[in-house]
């Protein structure tokens, strides 16, 4: 991803830091796209944040019993896709069960 795009994305996701919400539905990605092979398998969820905004995000720091609909989560900042050749590390929003 281009460094400029990473910079623009940061302005967007800063608004989503520290929110809580709950899992609407989820899956476990076992065959990842390019740039995610080191993280697979990983759970992915659609989450409804308190206030109504919905996001699609990876679940991190999870235990088996927390992978369920209505599980409460909080948003955290984590590395996302593998860094491209230019070396800038992309960060984004993921969710953590609480």
């Amino acid at each position, binding site marked *: 991803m281009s460094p400029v795009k990473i910079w623009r*994305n940061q302005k967007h996701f800063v608004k989503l830091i520290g929110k809580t919400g709950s899992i*609407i*539905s*989820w*899956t*476990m*990605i*076992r*065959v*990842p*796209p*390019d*740039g*995610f*092979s080191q*993280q*697979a398998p*990983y759970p*992915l*969820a*659609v*989450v409804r944040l308190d206030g109504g905004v*919905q*996001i*699609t*995000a*990876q679940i991190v720091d999870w235990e088996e019993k927390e992978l369920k*609909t209505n599980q409460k989560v909080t948003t955290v900042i984590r590395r*996302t*896709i593998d860094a491209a050749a230019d070396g800038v590390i*992309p960060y*984004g929003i*993921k969710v953590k069960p609480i």
Partner: protein
Amino acid sequence: MNITVAGVGMTKFGELWAASPRCLAGIAVSAAIKDSKIEKKSIQGIFVANMLSGMLGMQGHLGALFAEELGLSGVPAYTVEGACASGGLAVHAGVMSILSGQYETVCVLGVEKMTDHKPELVSSALMGAGSNEERLAGATFPGLYAILARSHMEKYGTTEQQLASVAVKNHFHASLNPLAQFTHPITTEQVLRSSCVADPLKLLDCSPVTDGAAAIILTKQQKASGVHIVASQIATDSLGLAGRKSLTELASTKRASEKAFIQAGVERKSIDLAEVHDCFTIAEILAIEDMGFGKKGEVGKLIEQGAYTLGTAERIVVNSSGGLKGCGHPIGATGVKQIVEITNQLRGVCGKRQVKNARVGLAHNVGGSGATAVVHILRK
């Protein structure tokens, strides 16, 4: 509406390593022109449906490329892209061009070359159909449809066996279609035992990576005989799943089909067969329910009972071609292939997979996880 499907043609679908996109397009368009009995020089416009050529093959500008390749240089030509709905959108654009009065005869070509590239790259390129947020989250299309599947299972009790029965049905239909990618039947056990791609979806719940092309020749209607397009409708929704009110339906499918039934002036019960967008098994269940061919939450069970299968269908046969699952899913070609199948069924030339007394058919093509839906209704 006064559009006639004058000619149809398609290539074999599958892993066609020896064939280039030019070669695939040539076969499909030549077959469609021959079938139409219209002279090639009568074609006034070319609509090319493709999603991945720019990303995977580094080749854009497909309108001019295929006009030249097909010996139609000089003819207006352009590319239509709407992810997996590119084919349906190109058919719609072709229909609109005739309705506008600009052209009388046009060619719609859907073509995709996918197997030249490694799976991770194809998977990433396909995510071009999703939202930026989904790409940054490491989502894949099997993953997004798996999220829809889990919602449906939790809300309505749809089972993994019922999902598997969609793949079993469509492989059975494909086994009767010599141009299908998979011509072997499969069992529910094989689907359930196949490796997990994105829980609860397994490998055999997913449509394959496919090379192929399909083409149709559309003309302004001259006579009552033949197969006609009587409705062509599109609806859109949020690009990503997170923007949806419900994860147990595709609102775009509902909207496009409602508009299409009104435009065609036909009722659901008049439809004899449908090609629906079964990119994943859950997608066929959603399609049948959202278009009103079965009650919400009950279609999984009905498919398992054979209610939409050739030979045992109660009122409508779904995906007689084998669908995306069995016939294959060359992205841009799929929506055009659906029109090829419905046309051949209405003409009564489908041999072993012929739906008896087929008079009215429907084609349903989806882009992404439901951001675009295209519905066509055809009758003879």
